[in-house]
């Protein structure tokens, strides 16, 4: 418990330090997004404040650095000194107080490489510089259609070339564990009533200078057409009897219609009901504004990368399928960095050669300095990265709820998994400590497929606690208790003479996920006498198996789906009628609560509803969650503003920040 208090104290310290930021930070998750107002009128003053802050920044940072140098001698006697030290630490450093604590590896790594330390990096005070090429290992997309059935794959690309109404900020000051709303095309927005949302667009936005747009001005009507196309496939194929359903459509079911006014440069969304999730879902990096020329003509032209024309910071110049892609600066980009006031983007070019299938090649590219960032899969990778490039800056990020290892069942109404005791026993028979240590070298914690922002914490500057959950908070079945597990199995009729046996499907490509699965199977054998047989699935169809239910009894997966809002993880996955409920979960209470939280605009009340959903699911173990690993990313010391967030593991998902990345060479 002492440690729990410690975390609270940590966050309070940051609160005082970050009071300037906290106002905008509050304009955040779910209900808050709609309930609070970030009006267009306010925007100017906000920008002025940001600029003032930016001017103050160099001196402040210099002072901090000095403080840090002296801090070593002074030892942390007073609370004040400890406070000062806490905010000037570099990634990798701990305060004396923290050093003295007996931290678990997961806590220590999380603290050492916490996102809040990135803003203290030496060189930040110099301010952004223009020029250079950002190179990263990145497999180009096969299909570039932001409106096609594969549009969600564009999450890793679209924000570089297109714009959205709302985005989440990503730079070295951004909260990697919590999403704030920030205008992109929108200079600001107003919520005159709970079913109306009015966006004021930025002035002087131009399309990229590529045919057929050829650099023309973007209008409010363009934005309306683009969002109509996102929410309703019949706008893409007006003459078709069987119009396509876009993958984005489910986020806009509450939208009745969209109006525009070119003269005032505004777009108005009229809703049929309050939608607590709408603003957050619009930040999804593949909900982008595509050119009306393509939407009204033949949107399948967007399949071709050559037809990628947006209003974004970079222009896509070259793609060789399966090999590499290249992009260059958009000279007519409309945005300025709110922090520095400088014109964006900073980099001249982006280059993404592919090393995905060949890790050794990626390492070679890292060692020779060809790539500027690398994803580190575990502690061994970390050691190698730092050895090869001593200037490596490491960031450890909480894992997203949308991607984490768990098991789902083909049919919850069929034996043996129709018996809740069997499901509970399987969870009790998992040694999550062994999983955490054995597979992830301690860098993981008990997982659960809901947004961790469900846990409110008023002492935190953003109102929610940082991951992870303690096992106790996840109910009585997320603990290791093989004896109780055996009892439950026995009660369900499975014992040594009649052992529980079932097929568990998993792909065969080696890696930590397959290792985790094999370990779990072995744990069940050891701890419960359960015989889970590995049903082999190839990697390429494995994800679709979840959707098509094409497996025999149980499926081990790590896909839930990256979500920008708690709604996607509650209603989206658990409601009986949701297309994303692949699990066969159908419970009247859950259904009702899922609907309730959609329209609940009060943050606290919404949190309470979400908690009820969580407790109910964990009692029933409709899905069995293992441990969820932290994410480690390494970037070169000269690279700034290139961050991971807890969902948008850049560059895998979300690349909003490419516009702000800069190099200090």
């Amino acid at each position, binding site marked *: 418990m002492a440690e729990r208090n410690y975390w609270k104290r940590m966050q309070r310290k940051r609160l005082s330090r970050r009071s300037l930021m906290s106002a905008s930070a509050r304009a955040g998750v779910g209900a808050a997004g709609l309930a609070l107002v970030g009006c267009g009128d306010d925007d100017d003053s906000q920008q002025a404040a940001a600029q003032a802050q930016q001017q103050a920044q160099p001196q402040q940072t210099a002072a901090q650095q000095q403080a840090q140098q002296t801090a070593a001698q002074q030892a942390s006697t007073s609370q004040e000194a400890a406070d000062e030290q806490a905010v000037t630490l570099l990634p990798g450093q701990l305060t004396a107080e923290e050093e003295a604590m007996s931290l678990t590896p997961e806590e220590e790594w999380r603290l050492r490489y916490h996102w809040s330390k990135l803003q203290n990096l030496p060189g930040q005070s110099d301010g952004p510089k223009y020029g250079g090429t950002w190179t990263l290992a990145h497999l180009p997309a096969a299909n570039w259609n932001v409106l096609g059935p594969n549009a969600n794959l564009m999450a*890793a690309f679209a924000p570089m070339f297109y714009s959205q109404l709302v985005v989440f900020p990503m730079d070295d000051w951004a909260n990697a564990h919590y999403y704030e709303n920030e205008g992109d095309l929108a200079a600001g927005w107003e919520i005159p009533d709970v079913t109306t949302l009015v966006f004021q667009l930025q002035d002087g936005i131009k399309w990229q200078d590529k045919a057929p747009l050829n650099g023309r001005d973007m209008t409010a009507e363009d934005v309306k057409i683009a969002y109509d196309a996102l929410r309703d496939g019949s706008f893409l194929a007006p003459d078709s009897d069987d119009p396509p359903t876009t*993958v984005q459509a489910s986020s806009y079911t509450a939208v009745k219609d969209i109006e525009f006014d070119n003269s005032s440069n505004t777009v108005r969304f009229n809703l049929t009901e309050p939608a607590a999730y709408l603003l957050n879902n619009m930040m999804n990096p593949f909900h982008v504004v595509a050119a009306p020329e393509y939407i009204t003509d033949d949107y399948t032209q967007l399949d071709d990368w050559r037809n990628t024309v947006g209003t974004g910071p970079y222009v896509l110049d070259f793609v060789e399928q399966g090999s590499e892609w290249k992009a260059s600066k958009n000279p007519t980009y409309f945005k300025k960095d709110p922090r520095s006031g400088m014109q964006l983007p900073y980099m001249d070019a982006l280059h993404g050669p592919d090393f995905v299938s060949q890790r050794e090649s990626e390492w070679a590219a890292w060692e020779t300095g060809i790539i500027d960032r690398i994803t580190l899969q575990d502690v061994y990778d970390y050691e190698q990265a730092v050895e090869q490039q001593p200037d490596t800056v490491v960031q450890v990020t909480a894992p997203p709820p*949308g991607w984490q290892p768990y098991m789902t069942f083909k049919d919850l109404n069929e034996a043996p998994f129709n018996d809740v005791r069997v499901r509970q026993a399987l969870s009790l028979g998992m040694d999550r400590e062994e999983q955490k240590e054995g597979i992830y070298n301690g860098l993981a914690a008990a997982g659960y497929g809901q947004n961790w922002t469900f846990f409110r914490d008023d002492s935190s500057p953003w109102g929610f606690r940082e991951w992870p959950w303690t096992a106790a908070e996840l109910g009585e079945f997320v603990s290791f208790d093989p004896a109780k597990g055996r009892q439950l199995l026995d009660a369900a009729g499975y014992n040594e003479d009649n052992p529980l046996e079932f097929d568990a499907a998993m792909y065969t490509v080696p890696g930590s996920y397959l290792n985790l699965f094999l370990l779990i199977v072995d744990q069940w054998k050891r701890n419960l006498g359960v015989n889970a047989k590995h049903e082999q699935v190839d990697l*390429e169809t494995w994800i*679709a198996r979840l959707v098509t239910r094409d497996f025999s009894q149980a499926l081990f997966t790590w896909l839930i789906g990256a979500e920008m809002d708690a709604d996607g993880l509650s209603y989206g996955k658990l409601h009986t009628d949701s297309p994303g409920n692949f699990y066969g979960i159908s419970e009247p209470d859950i259904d009702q609560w899922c609907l309730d939280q959609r329209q609940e605009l009060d943050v606290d009340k919404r949190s309470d509803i979400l908690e009820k959903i969580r407790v109910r699911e964990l009692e029933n173990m409709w899905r069995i969650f293992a441990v969820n690993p932290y994410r480690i990313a390494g970037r070169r010391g000269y690279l700034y503003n290139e961050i991971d967030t807890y969902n948008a593991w850049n560059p895998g998902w979300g690349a909003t920040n490419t516009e702000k990345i800069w190099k200090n060479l």
Partner: protein
Amino acid sequence: MGGYLVRRLLGVVVVIFLLSFIAFMLVNAFPGSTAERLLAEGPQGSGITQEIIERFNKELGLDRPPLERYGDWLWNAVRGDLGNSFASSESVLNDIKVRLPRSLELVMLASVMAFFIAIPVGVLSAVRSGTFPDYAGRVFTILGLAIPNFFLGVLVVSFVAEWLNVSLATLPSPYIWDSFVQNLEGMIAPALVLSASLMATLMRMQRSQVLEIIHEDYVRTARAKGLSERSVILKHVFRNSFIPVLTIFGNQFAFLISGAVIVEYIFRINGIGALLVTSIRRADFNEVVGITVVIGLGVVLINLLVDLSYAWIDPRIRYG
């Protein structure tokens, strides 16, 4: 010669037609997973629904019977259109054009290396039978035939590169005409790995052929005429031993391409082999069939060339 050539070329056409039919039917015999594979690409499948899968299949025309689709495909292929990739909508022919130069270079480089090393060593090994070069050559032959190219590739990428402190396979190699040196830097190691087993095969064949011929009457006669050992070997022994070696090369060519697929994968060369691996995984049928037909054409033509070259090497051979 003319009549022979016409007959052979007709044979090529028939084989390619059969091959395309077999390839097309094979990939289409097990339908149903293309959409799943394409949609599931990458780890972000959150938006997939059954509805979207059906939409995809319809857009790709996969709901029509295979024979009908083969008819369409063949008609277009005859006119030089191999269709579009299911995944990227890019023209298959274009995809092949972009990548073929790299694969051709890899295979040619490997073949040239194999010939230039295997033939002299093979001859030397036979002529100086029982000496150190002979034993070295034979040990290499035995090992080269046994060590799988994927293991050799892994050893080179992971260990040799580390020991020599060079990094292999980093950025995509430019085309050879864009940057000769940079291209070769990226190509030499994979070409060597690819050529190992071919080299061993050729070396072994060359050695045994020379050993056989060296005892023939006409060689003895040549020696008796007082020709120098050097010209005996070059003029009589080598020339006569070369045809079986060339035949083996023709036979091994399909295996060489198989090897190239794995070597491209390990060294991350974006040739048609790497594209084929990706396309097979995606069940991108148009791409798979297109590449298979192009590779098949290459194999058949190389064998035709090998047969034709007999006449050039040995003027006694006449085709009628």
